């Protein structure tokens, strides 16, 4: 075990632990931008720098890459550290199109939060900004190079976690940009539109197109639920504004660990209040063959009387009820109870076979 202090708090951790991990154990938060837990550190953003003193020598280094040594005295908020982080932010802002008012990520941007925290309102650097065009080719999200801070969280997410490796950092230096190899156009690569890269982006550079319809501070509630499509059972958050679902985000569930696929992220809410939803009970007019709107009492009485008639004349086995494998356990339990207790039949089944 290695012994060290972080901001004066003694910590004991295993050999090979990074300072960032040790700080987390001690309940101390070090700011990061590019860092993704569980992956090898990217080490590119330099936000997590700390000051480490050992044997009378002190140095500034990134906490995500630096492993602990016996006797380290770590300071996470020394003057030097704060100064270094300010410089980092200043440099990031120098190539960041600060139009926060019209940016979808306003109020939901890690860069904005950090600049606020470190008191940075504008960059002290003058010069040219990236002028590369926005990539709107993906159906669900867009990429704006003028907001990209090249933290590579999207690339690392797609390559290491999603395992698709659809995107990479193209060209070098000032003209760097994220894109799908080799055309640089998102939609023409092997992208599956899962949007996990978008969720990983700390700024507004990668943004779901539907974000134009709401701002982070307008959200009324966030509802944790389970995806309605396949049996992976991904956990997700429905974002609700004015009684409508406006967005979906991946949540950290046991089977999905924050990930979603294109169906969960983009195919699970447009249908809920879709204009084609049936909203009233309907009874078919035998003569015209057309459906006509009815009250619940009319519809339910008709159903009960017809089913009861069949049951009386032919027995319960002449009735059947099938459940839906997309519905909740509670719904399905009540359906089979209805078939068994009221229909008097065991002719109940579900679409497991089809």
């Amino acid at each position, binding site marked *: 075990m290695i012994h060290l202090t972080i901001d004066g708090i003694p910590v004991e951790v295993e050999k090979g632990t990074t300072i960032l991990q040790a700080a987390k154990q001690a309940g101390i938060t070090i700011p990061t931008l590019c860092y993704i837990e569980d992956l090898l550190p990217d080490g590119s953003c330099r936000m997590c720098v700390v000051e480490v003193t050992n044997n009378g020598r002190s140095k500034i280094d990134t906490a995500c890459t630096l492993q602990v040594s016996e006797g380290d005295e770590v300071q996470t908020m020394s003057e030097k550290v704060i100064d270094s982080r300010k410089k980092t932010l200043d440099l990031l802002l120098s190539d960041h199109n600060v139009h926060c008012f019209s940016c979808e990520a306003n109020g939901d941007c890690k860069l904005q939060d950090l600049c606020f925290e470190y008191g940075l309102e504008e960059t002290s650097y003058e010069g040219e900004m990236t002028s590369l065009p926005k990539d709107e080719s993906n*159906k669900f999200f867009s990429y704006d190079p003028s907001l990209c801070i090249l933290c590579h969280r999207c690339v690392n997410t797609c390559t290491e976690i999603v*395992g698709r490796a659809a995107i990479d950092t193209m060209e070098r230096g000032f003209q760097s940009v994220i894109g799908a190899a080799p055309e640089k156009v998102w939609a023409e690569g092997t992208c599956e539109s*899962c949007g996990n890269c978008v969720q990983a982006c700390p700024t507004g550079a990668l943004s779901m197109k539907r974000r134009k319809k709401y701002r982070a501070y307008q959200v009324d509630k966030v*509802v*944790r*639920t389970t995806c*309605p*499509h396949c*049996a*992976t*059972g991904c*956990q997700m958050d*429905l974002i*609700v504004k004015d009684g409508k679902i406006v967005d979906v985000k991946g949540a950290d569930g*046991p089977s999905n*660990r924050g*990930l979603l*696929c*294109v169906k969960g992220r*983009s*195919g699970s*809410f447009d249908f809920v209040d879709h204009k084609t*939803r049936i*909203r*009233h*009970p309907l009874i078919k007019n035998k003569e015209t063959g057309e459906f006509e709107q009815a009250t619940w009492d009319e519809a339910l009485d008709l*159903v009960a009387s017809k089913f*009861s008639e*069949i*049951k009386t004349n*032919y027995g319960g086995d002449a009735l*059947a*009820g*099938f*459940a*839906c*494998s*997309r*519905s909740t*356990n*509670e*719904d*399905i*339990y*009540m*359906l*089979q*109870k*209805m*078939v068994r207790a*009221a229909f*008097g039949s*065991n*002719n*109940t*089944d*579900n*679409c*497991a076979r*089809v």
Partner: protein
Amino acid sequence: MTNTIYDITHESDAIMLVGSNPEEAHPVIGMQVRQAVARGAKLIVVDPRDIDLSKKATIHLKLRPGTNVAFANGLMHIFIEEGLVDQKFIEERTENFEAMKEMVKDYTPEKVAEICQIDADQLREAARIYATANRAPIMYCLGVTEHHTGTEGVMSLSNVAMMVGKIGRPGCGVNPIRGQNNVQGACDMGASPNQFTGYQNIAAPGIVEKFEEAWGVKLNHEIGTKATDCFPKMISGDIKGLLIFGEDPVRTDPNTHHVIKALESLDFFVVDELFMTETAKLADVILPGRSYAEKEGTFTNTERRVQRVRKAVEIAGETRPDTWIFTEIMNRMGYPQPHLTPAQIMDEIASVTPSFAGISHERLDSEEVGGKGLQWPCISKDHPGTPIMHVGKFARGLGYFRPAAYKPSAELPDEEYPLLMMTGRILYHYNACAMTDKTEGINEIAGSSFIELNTADANALGILDGELVSVSSRRGTIQAEARVSGKTNKGECWMPFHYLEGSCNWLTSDALDGISSTPEYKVCAVKVAKAE
């Protein structure tokens, strides 16, 4: 699944994927399989198509569809021949090994290679990788079950895992990747003609009586009719009244003509639906229910994990919770059923279902569970749930080897219908698309049906990539766009089953699995020609 998605993808040394394309059908599982390969796990893909994962596979056995049982018997033959069996596991934990040994004796790698149209040495190599890996799961999907010998295919995979002791440990097991979000739950909840909740058999002594007492009503003691067997009974007039809750058999069941005829034969037909589906159009009454986002409840995923569904919104109109609808019908038919909240319903489920006894909404929402759900069996309020099944002991005591002989598919290609057609899912849609086709972006990416043809077959027919073709079987004819490649073997083609226009279920066979009555979607015979 006997295991969890996490342990089979994060703690395994090799993965055997049989008839499953998780990258498209269960994408977030697919992502974790890709992580496993990147981590160094070996991957064996057993699939008649070049699915994307086959490019990452150590071995891809591109076998003839419908030959899974022969494949499994071949693996076991090799285990025995090369001394790869787990003798200790077989002796201590299983029975009927001798009969199994007898059955697979004739399934030499050469013979199996011929049936499956694969390479015998690759089969040997696959057997060795799987058997010698310390931890290796089998994952399978509808490619195994949707055959008329599907149940035997599943049993055969269990035999394979037992023979090398890969059950009851992390990173192992026999893991069906269930299709729809709550298909596991639907089976668990007793929507089944021969079982009540938690697989309590109607035929078992005392079970019907137990439910009669719990529900306070005399119940029918006869086993009911499976859904797929109900359709012929509607045509013959034995079944006269039907309520369908949220399914669209006109779209999703094989042999569409037959399904429509059956539904039209009914005296009275009720549908509880969100949308005017092809099935709903045939109903006498439509009752507007609610979607997952408008109600409280639970889904059970493929890991047997019960997780919460929570109400986010209400929509304009007069939709009602489905449990309210069923309760009203029960009362109006004379069975007094009080209106219960979903949480109260789960308490009732727990009270009549031993494997759910410890599950409640209150517990699922608690800090103790911490948003991780509970995996049944969960037998009491302080039971933590069961992530891995059959640890130390099988549910039935000893694991039973069930030998099965290979039988060819019910409908094989012939002179008139020379191509073997398979069906499956694509990434962007779910089943009949009732939900996914409401998202514009999805339709723009994947809006219409297609058929994958082998290049040699297409050349012989003079069909070019992208051309419109007509596809016919003994049951119907449809049109779709041809996608010509080497993705399928020569003599085989493949279609997605999501689309209304060019729906492949006008063609598919309604030959059923002899045991589970699952239709043989995966194999039917068709002919293809340039569209007129």
